[in-house]
Each structure stands twice: as structure tokens, then as C-alpha cells.
């Protein structure tokens, strides 16, 4: 397994270079997990991409580096301690680094020789191919497939020059991964929405959720979607609700700040029983916070946002495949129960890329059992007819003689304003009954680790990969650790939690926030109290190593 970091100021094409390198690895049969750490600026600063690859599937990043490519001194200074003693440091001799691990390659000069000074990154790729003993031909083919033909010649020159000026250093095992897809968390989520039948998407641009809007806009004509950039997030969600009312399968997406603006309409979706999926790609808050960084601190906000009481569902996506299947499921659940479904991701997962097994579009599109056929009440159609399931038959306006009335005020079965006490109680109860049906749909957290854990870890969403890997690392050292990774969080599934909790001597929540929100939610719903938590809230995602170190600090697996 190899771990590589490419760093430099914004504007150096680090993103592009990492993207090309990931494709080369995929084509050569390697599993890849690649994350981005970018500042909120167009030029300058310090950005890096970290690409981990090998012959086993990967779902998290680690700290220790085999290769460091430094475009500037800052990159070298920030990351040199993470580079293994026998690792490779690739940098332009211009930087005048004195480091035993240095392989100086005159990147700037070679890029100029190649005929385009902007091919700096591609020169690096060539040098890396040589260092890793990988065939140059794959790199050439990927460049030919990805680049604008006008730019191809200079880039081919660049990769060849880099290769010629490199030095062989590592021996890679043969990559054996077949038929893998390489995509980002955002792409997986967007395509999951399409698999679930999404027809309408409205949003206001906001990092790190903008990639969803961009994806849908790019593919609008192909998939016959209405994609509208709204004037603000309030408009975005109210548009989605208008579209849902008129019969479209609708979704909106934003980050925490935008979601804050959507909250009144979230309650409207609840009382008016309008199906909608709201994706929140989390970043650290409050307010503007850290725009391009990651956090899991919107969890409790998502569970409890809005005045009043109404059923909702909160699902957190865990990895790339899960983002695809859960988004499709969220779309279908919102339609089936006529509720808002809140779908949580974060910058780390949205922007990271991974190789995953092929995705099953048809399976994703039918992951929720449709409602059993319901006999409609006799007499005139009523949008909010009282039913045992709490779900009233939903008709599309204009598609029958019936008129369809929805209301943000409390309303009668016909959908007109009422203040009648009895009807109010009937309506609150009717809406709440949807939770009974939802309870049967809940997916229990996935469990990994020792059959009888002494130590139980609980986590949710994008930390799942790192937690799982940390558990197997500890168990290989002879400990009995297990982990429950939650995707469905509200309503909270509790069966498996209670089952494993009984066996464990200590339970730790692992969370990317400062206040242990999952631990609080668990305590609130079950009365169970975590022993302690490992929390990270600096805007950077915790690595496998950080979890292991954190557990050591708590006395888990020490001295064995």
C-alpha cells in the first residue's frame, strides 16, 4: 500500500494532477482512496491532495507518507515529518531542499521544454511513474482520454520528460482490482438521486455542496431534469416544495448555513406533507465557519431544526457506495411517507474520490417497498384524509377531477385552514403515525470487529472507513474492539446498539465535532451514556492513525 501527498499553492493544478493520477491507478488495477485539503481561495495559500492506493479496497486516509511532492517550501515544512525515513520527496531543485529523501527533478525547466509551463504536474506524474515502476503507456493513454486535444502534445512531452528524469525506487505489487468505478462522494450522491427518480433540483451555490448543483446542471438535458439556481436557499427549498406539490420528485442541497435559511420551509414540508430530500454537505460552522473544510456538527441541528413537531428522517452517508444507495433510498422514502428526508454528507466525503465496486442502478431505484395499495376514502378527494398509516393518498394536481389543496396552516382533511381543537389533534397524530411505518424501514448500524467486544466504538457517516480500519488494526494486535457505524440516525435504530452495548466494558463515540453529538443523541433516545469520546473539530478529517492514537490515550490497547 502506498500513500502519496501532493501539495502547493492554489492555482498549481493539484486537483487536476491528482485526478489524472487516480485514473492512472484505477486503470492499472489499484484500489484508490484520495482526499482533498483545500483552502477557501482561488490562488496561493496551501492546498494538498492525498492519494492512497494498493491492492486492497480503501475507505480512509492515513498519516504516514511514502511519497511527498512539494511544489513549494510550505508543503515541505508542513508534511516532511509524515514522510517515512525511506520515503521519496519529489521537488524542484530550485527549492534548494536538503533532505536525504529528496529526488530533485527540474520540474519548471522540463515543463518549459515540454512546450507548456503549466504542465508542471504532468512532469511530476511522469517522474512518479518511474519511481513506482509503473508503465508510462497507461499515463499516456489517460492523458489522451482526459485532455483537450490542443493541449495533448505538450502534456505527452511533459509526462515523457518526467519519466526520463525520474529514478526507479519502489516495487509495486500487480494491481488486481477489476471493474472498479472511480468517483467522488458528491458524484455518487448525485447519481444516487437520479437512480431514486429525482426530477427537480433547486439550490443556491454553497461550498461544499455546489458540486451537486454543477453535476445536475451538466446532466440536465441528458436526464430531462429541471435544475434551477435559486436566488437564495429559502427560494431553493420553496421551489422544491412547489415542484413536489405539482408531482415532481424534488430535492435541494446546501451546507449548514444554507440549511439554516431553509428551516421554516422544512417545517412547512412537515405539516403540508410534501416529499422532499434536503442534502446537507456539512462544513464547520457556525456562520461562515471554515468554508472548504469538514465537520459533522450539524447532526443534532438536522434532527431538531424547525418549530413544531412532525416526522422526518435523517440519514448520514458513510462512503461512496453508501452515498449512492442511500440517496436513492432517501428520495424514495420521502415520496412514500410524504416527509422531508435530510441527507447528511460532509466536505471530506463529497470531495474525496475512491474506487468502488460497480453500482446497481435498478437495485438502488427499488430499495424501498412501495406502499400496499390503499382503498381511497369514499366521497370527494381529500388531500389529508385520515388513515391508519398516517399517509394520505397524494394526487397530482390536474390529473384527475379532484382539486388538491395544501396548507402551511393547520388544516382539515380537505386542506383548508382550521383552528378546531379536535382536528388539530387528529392531524398531529395522523402525521406522527408515519413514524410507525418508518420504524420498520430503519437500517441498523453496521458492525465490524470482534464478535464479543470489550471496547465498543460508535460513529456515523464519513468516519466509518477510518473507524473500521482502526478497529481491525487494534484487533490484529490482539484486542477485542468493535464498532457500530450509523447511517440512519433519526429516528435512531437501537436494536444492535443495545445488543453490543451490553457486552462492552467501555463505549467511545468517535465524532468529527466538539460536543459529542452522537453520544448525546444515543443518550437521549436510549438512556445509554458513552464512557468517553474522541472528538476532532479542527476542520480536518481524522485519520486511521488519529483514532488509534486517541484510543491509546484513553487506555485502549496500551502496553500490549
Amino acid at each position, binding site marked *: 500500500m502506498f500513500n502519496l501527498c501532493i501539495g502547493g499553492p492554489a492555482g498549481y493544478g493539484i486537483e487536476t494532477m491528482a485526478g489524472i493520477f487516480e485514473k492512472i491507478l484505477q486503470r492499472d488495477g489499484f484500489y484508490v482512496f484520495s482526499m482533498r485539503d483545500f483552502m477557501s481561495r482561488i490562488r496561493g495559500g496551501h492546498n494538498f491532495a492525498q492519494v492512497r492506493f494498493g491492492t486492497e479496497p480503501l475507505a480512509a486516509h492515513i498519516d504516514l507518507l511514502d511519497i511527498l511532492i512539494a511544489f513549494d517550501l510550505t508543503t515541505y515544512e508542513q508534511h516532511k515529518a509524515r514522510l517515512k525515513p525511506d520515503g521519496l520527496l519529489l521537488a524542484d531543485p530550485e527549492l534548494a531542499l536538503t533532505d536525504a529523501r529528496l529526488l530533485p527533478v527540474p520540474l519548471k525547466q522540463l515543463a518549459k521544454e515540454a512546450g507548456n509551463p503549466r504542465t508542471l504536474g504532468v512532469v511530476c506524474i511522469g517522474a512518479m511513474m518511474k519511481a513506482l515502476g509503473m508503465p508510462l503507456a497507461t499515463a499516456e493513454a489517460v492523458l489522451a482520454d482526459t485532455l483537450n486535444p490542443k493541449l495533448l502534445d505538450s502534456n505527452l512531452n511533459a509526462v515523457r520528460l518526467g519519466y526520463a528524469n525520474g529514478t526507479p525506487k519502489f516495487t509495486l505489487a500487480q494491481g488486481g482490482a477489476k*471493474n*472498479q*468505478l*472511480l468517483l467522488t462522494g458528491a*458524484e455518487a450522491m448525485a*447519481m444516487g438521486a*437520479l*437512480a431514486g*427518480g429525482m*426530477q*427537480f433540483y*433547486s439550490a443556491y451555490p454553497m461550498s461544499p455542496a455546489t458540486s451537486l448543483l454543477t453535476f445536475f446542471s451538466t*446532466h*440536465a*438535458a*441528458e*436526464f*430531462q*431534469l*429541471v435544475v*434551477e439556481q435559486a*436566488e437564495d436557499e*429559502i*427560494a*431553493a427549498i*420553496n*421551489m422544491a*416544495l*412547489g*415542484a413536489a*406539490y*405539482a*408531482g*415532481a420528485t*424534488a430535492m435541494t442541497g446546501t451546507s449548514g448555513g444554507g440549511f439554516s435559511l431553509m428551516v*421554516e*420551509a422544512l417545517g*412547512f414540508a412537515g405539516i403540508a406533507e410534501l416529499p422532499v430530500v434536503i442534502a446537507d454537505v456539512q462544513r464547520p460552522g457556525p456562520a461562515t465557519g471554515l468554508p472548504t473544510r469538514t465537520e459533522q456538527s450539524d447532526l443534532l441541528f438536522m434532527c431538531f431544526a424547525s418549530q413544531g413537531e412532525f416526522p422526518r428522517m435523517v440519514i448520514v452517508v458513510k462512503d461512496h457506495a453508501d452515498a449512492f444507495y442511500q440517496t436513492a433510498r432517501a428520495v424514495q422514502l420521502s415520496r412514500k411517507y410524504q416527509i422531508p428526508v435530510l441527507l447528511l454528507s460532509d466536505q471530506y466525503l463529497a470531495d474525496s474520490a475512491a474506487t468502488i465496486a*460497480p*453500482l446497481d*442502478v*435498478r437495485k438502488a*431505484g427499488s430499495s424501498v417497498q412501495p406502499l400496499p395499495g390503499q382503498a381511497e376514502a369514499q366521497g370527494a378527494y381529500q388531500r389529508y384524509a385520515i388513515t391508519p398509516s398516517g399517509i394520505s393518498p397524494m394526487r*397530482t*394536481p*390536474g*390529473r*384527475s*377531477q*379532484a*382539486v*388538491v*389543496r*395544501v*396548507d*402551511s*396552516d393547520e388544516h382539515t382533511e380537505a*386542506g*383548508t*385552514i382550521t383552528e378546531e381543537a379536535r382536528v388539530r389533534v387528529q392531524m398531529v397524530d395522523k402525521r406522527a403515525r408515519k413514524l410507525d411505518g418508518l420504524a420498520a424501514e430503519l437500517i441498523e448500524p453496521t458492525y465490524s470487529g470482534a464478535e464479543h467486544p470489550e471496547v465498543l466504538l460508535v460513529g456515523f457517516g464519513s468516519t466509518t472507513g477510518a473507524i473500521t480500519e482502526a478497529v481491525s488494526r487494534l484487533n490484529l494486535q490482539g484486542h477485542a474492539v468493535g464498532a457500530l457505524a450509523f447511517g440512519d440516525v433519526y429516528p435512531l435504530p437501537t436494536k444492535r446498539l443495545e445488543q453490543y452495548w451490553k457486552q462492552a466494558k467501555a463505549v467511545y463515540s468517535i465524532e468529527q465535532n466538539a460536543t459529542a453529538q452522537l453520544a448525546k443523541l444515543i443518550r437521549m433516545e436510549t438512556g445509554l451514556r458513552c464512557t468517553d469520546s474522541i472528538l476532532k473539530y479542527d476542520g480536518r478529517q481524522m485519520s486511521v492513525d488519529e483514532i488509534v492514537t486517541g484510543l491509546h490515550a484513553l487506555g485502549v490497547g496500551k502496553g500490549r
Partner: protein
Amino acid sequence: MSEMKFQSTETAWCPGCGNFDILQTLVGVLNDLAFAPEEVLLVGGIGQAAKLNQYVNANGFSGLHGRSLPAAVAAKMVNQNLKVIVNSGDGDSYGEGGNHFLHNIRRNVDIAHFVHDNQIYGLTKGQTSPTSDPCSDTNAGACNLNKPFQPLLVALAAGATFVARSFSGNKEHMARMMKAAILHKGYALVDILQPCVSFNKVNTFAYYREHTYELEAEYDPTDIKAAVLRSMEFGAKIPIGILYQAQAPTFHQRRPEIFDETPMIDKHPAPDKLEALLRQYA
């Protein structure tokens, strides 16, 4: 006149409210146009005016305060066969919903927007609205220390293709304006002056009757400069009529690659399309 398909029901408005005339006139217009109740969608936000859709046997969407326009345009986007008409007040349309007013004019989705403009907040009992008159010695009650909002001027500046004003006390005129707005292709604004009998003691029936005048027969509604001048006329004399009308491509017409005869709600791409897209990631 054909069969009377639309009716109004009992309302929660104050006796003598201008909303009654607007409701009756709208019902008459819908009957004249011979629409079917199920093809008409009446959208409102929150407020006394916004309740109008509660009292008509058509599809009704009573949304959030200020947010009627985003919901209305989205409904039209996904099913162009719906005749979408928004009824909301001056507070809802120009205050809370100001940003949506501005940007939905630019979108030019084919809907009609009837603003019941009584220059005051009624449901919350008499506060200043964006269009309340400026404060002066003669004013009683709510008045604007800030400059009053000029909806028609703003609509023209944002590129509206149908800008009209009417008065609820002149039903024949109001019916003409409503009909023209509904038939107009694109976003159509009718600012309907309407007395609030409970809270606005200045802008009364008598006040509007005295101050409003119909645009002259020779007035040219395609002349934007004339429209701009008339849109600023609000005081001793207030013009009513179609100040401006032009044809411009609608939201749907500007996106031929997305919209055709088939409403979007009926489009369900086959799974192989997504399967083909996914193969590009292999």
C-alpha cells in the same frame, strides 16, 4: 357565458374588505376563460390576501409568508399545463418576498401575480407595509418613514413583460387586467389597489376612487419610457391599466433542450441512461 365551474365559499375577511371584490372578479374571470378547476392552481403566501385560494374550488397551495412565488414558478416549471395564479398581499410580495419578486420577474415563468396592495399589514393589525404612503401631517396610523416601495417601477427595471395596476372598486377594469395577465405569456404583475377597511383610514375606497384614473386610449403600452414615468405616478393621480406589455421568451422557451410538449413530471429516464453514465467512471 359557459357553465359556472368556479365558485367561492365563505371567507374569514372583515365585512367590506376589498378582497371580496377581488375574489368575485377572479372567479368570474376563471369562469369566462372556461378553465376546468383542476387545471387552475391558485398559490398564496400568508396574509389576508393570501387566503384567497382557500375560498375557490381550484387547486390551492397556501405556502409560507413571502414564499409564494418560488413555489408557484416551480409548479409551473414541472407542469406547464397548470394555469398558475398567485394572490398575495403587499407585505408578502414586496416585503418578506422581495428577493423572490425581483428574481422571478427575471425568470419570466408564465404565471400571473396579483398583489392585493392595501398599503398596510392587515392580518397583524395595522403596521406599515412597503407600499404605505410616506408620513406627513395628514397621515393617520401606519405610514412610511422610509421611502415607499414602487413595485411597478421595480418590476420594469427587473425586465417584467407585463406590468399593470388596477383598483378593487372598479371590477370591470380589474377583470380586464386579470384576464390579460392570465393570457400573457410570461410573468404578469397586477398591483391591485385595495382598501383595508379595518386599519387603513387614509387609502379608502373613496380615496382610490378619487385618485385613480384609467390610462388614455392612446397610451402605448409598448413604450417602456412612458411606462417608467407612469409607474412613478402615485399620489394625487394614480394611473390604472396595462402600463407595459412586451413579448419575450419565457423560462420554458429559453430552455428547448429541457422543455417540450411533455410536462417534466411525466419524464422518467430509463435506468440504462444512468448505467451508461456510470460506465464513464469505470
